[in-house]
């Protein structure tokens, strides 16, 4: 028997290959993936290709779209298309970073609170009550007065630190029911350790749920960020999609027909990114749930 045993080897499936096979199974999901990849890729590679200083064209102030400036120019004669390419980085970064912070906090606290219950659980629940009752944008405004919100990391931290309670509540509820499942008890009986039981046995069962909420959190964080810019609560230095919308508002671009694209372009980018993310969730669900994979 031992000879036979020795011949068995671990099959090494190509994980990347498998990932793409699942990804392409849903057309919608794959389209979403392409869309997100294009936008994120543009914001990353853009500044390396396009001149970051985006020189002023004094001949075209609030210029209409032309062969030279495809999407026209803004009030200081800067090219709108270049602004779009250059200005996505902050928005995308803050969106993803804030969502990551929110999701990690929610998952860690939510699952531990549900698993251990007791005082930790009740303190955390009270905390979420407090955070949830205060309107986020007002809190952000107040915080903006105390902290310098000029760095994207700071913005992400701020937005992420305020938006976890709702997700934490639903993660907690799910873990409460999952931890009663027999496979969790079996893992406890095998003494696999609390860390493993919570984060390897329980949490991955919520993977698609967490993923979808991560994407919703990206969406919300981007809206929160744009909201901050629109209200002028974050410093309006540099150029990004949020500041462009604020500019359009403050400097009156929205009233000039020629500059319609100046306001539409950043909004379109944000909408496309959201759309791509939501479409992507289709594929993610299939990748993360083995039961859907065999269909």
């Amino acid at each position: 028997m031992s000879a036979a045993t020795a011949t068995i080897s671990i099959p090494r499936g190509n994980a990347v290959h498998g990932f793409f096979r699942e990804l392409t199974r849903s057309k919608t999901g794959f389209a979403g993936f392409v869309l997100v990849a294009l936008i994120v890729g543009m914001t990353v590679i853009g500044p390396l290709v396009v001149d970051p200083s985006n020189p002023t064209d004094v001949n075209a102030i609030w210029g209409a779209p032309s062969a030279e400036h495809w999407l026209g120019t803004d009030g200081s004669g800067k090219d709108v298309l270049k602004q779009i390419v250059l200005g996505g980085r902050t928005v995308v970064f803050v969106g993803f970073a804030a969502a990551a912070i929110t999701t990690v906090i929610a998952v860690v606290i939510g699952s531990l609170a549900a698993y251990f219950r007791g005082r930790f659980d009740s303190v955390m629940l009270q905390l979420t009550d407090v955070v949830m009752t205060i309107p986020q944008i007002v809190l952000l405004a107040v915080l903006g007065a105390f902290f310098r919100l000029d760095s994207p990391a700071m913005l992400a931290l701020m937005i992420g630190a305020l938006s976890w309670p709702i997700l934490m509540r639903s993660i907690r509820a799910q873990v409460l029911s999952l931890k009663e499942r027999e496979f969790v008890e079996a893992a406890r009986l095998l003494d696999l350790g609390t860390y493993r039981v919570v984060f390897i046995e329980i949490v991955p069962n919520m993977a698609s749920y967490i993923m979808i909420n991560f994407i919703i959190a990206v969406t919300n964080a981007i809206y929160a960020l744009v909201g901050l810019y629109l209200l002028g609560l974050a410093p309006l230095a540099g150029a990004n999609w949020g500041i462009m919308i604020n500019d359009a508002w403050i400097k009156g671009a929205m009233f000039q027909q020629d500059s319609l694209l100046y306001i539409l372009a950043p909004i379109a980018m944000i909408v496309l990114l959201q759309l791509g993310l939501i479409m992507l969730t289709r594929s993610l669900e299939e990748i993360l749930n083995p039961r859907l994979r065999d269909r």
Partner: protein
Amino acid sequence: MPERTPLISLRGASQTFHSKSGDIPAVDNVDISVGPGEVLCLVGESGCGKTTSARMAAGLSRPTSGTVEFEGKDIWSMSKEEFVTFRKSVQYVHQDPYASLNPIRDIHKTLSAPLLKHGIAKNRSEGWTQSAELLRRVDLTPPENYLPKFPHQLSGGQRQRVAVARALTLNPKLIIADESTSMLDVSIRVGMLNMLGRLRDELGVGFLFITHDLAIAKYFGWRGKIAVMYLGRVVEFGDTPDVINNPQHPYTKALLDAVPEPDPDLTKTKKPGGGLRSADIPSLRNLPPGCTFHPRCPLFEEGTCNTVRPELTLLDSGRQVSCHVVARRGSINAPAGASAGGS
């Protein structure tokens, strides 16, 4: 009987659940023990406390009074290391094979996780070969067909075998099987029971086997002991063949009388209602005084039965029965009709 240190023993163990509508004494003062390589079957109807007792024995819940001992030591006053040793030595196989395996984990990961965590396998490839070996033990061959599969790709019987293989990862001394075969089809069930029997013979694993099916208890526990539970207490205890073929407690008799036999002639001899005075089980919240079985008991005698609680009394040849009427008689009645004698 020579007294060896049992693997696991419940000593006067009780478990009372608290609910809004009052306390529920799920298990009341139960003494049971299983030695190395022995089989003890706990049988009874739902709500009789068999699963609660099993969970106490597995250290999954703490008795509200009494103790649970592993190799003579109270598990709830053990040091951390001792408790880990206990945990590894006593494993549990659940009833529902659809709920007891993590749906997102393939069989290989399910089996190798405990092997790697406890250093039984030193690396991934050892984890693989040892997992394959475990699958062979539970007759899932060839193992390489099963290792990469996810639970939803297996049948109920195959899943339950995986659950047993997982229970074997840490070389346990005792397996607690809680209705582990009750959700399987008949043709699958026997294969599973035979496989468990082989584990007992080849690996010397002891079994605490919980079932509501007396025929299964008889088949699996023939060379072991059986404890019949009713409303949280053990009412009859003895060697399996003796208890099954010559029950003494009126409740055990009623249960055996009520089982529909896969034999049309034999089954015509069954007494309607199992010979009981009432078909309804009293609520645990509101137990009858005296012997809790008295409102249904065909041997009921006014006076003692409804005022004094009977204790388990030793009759001859190691049989224990908790019944005033039978205890008064003091010795075992010959089985009615069937061939007398025994092992």
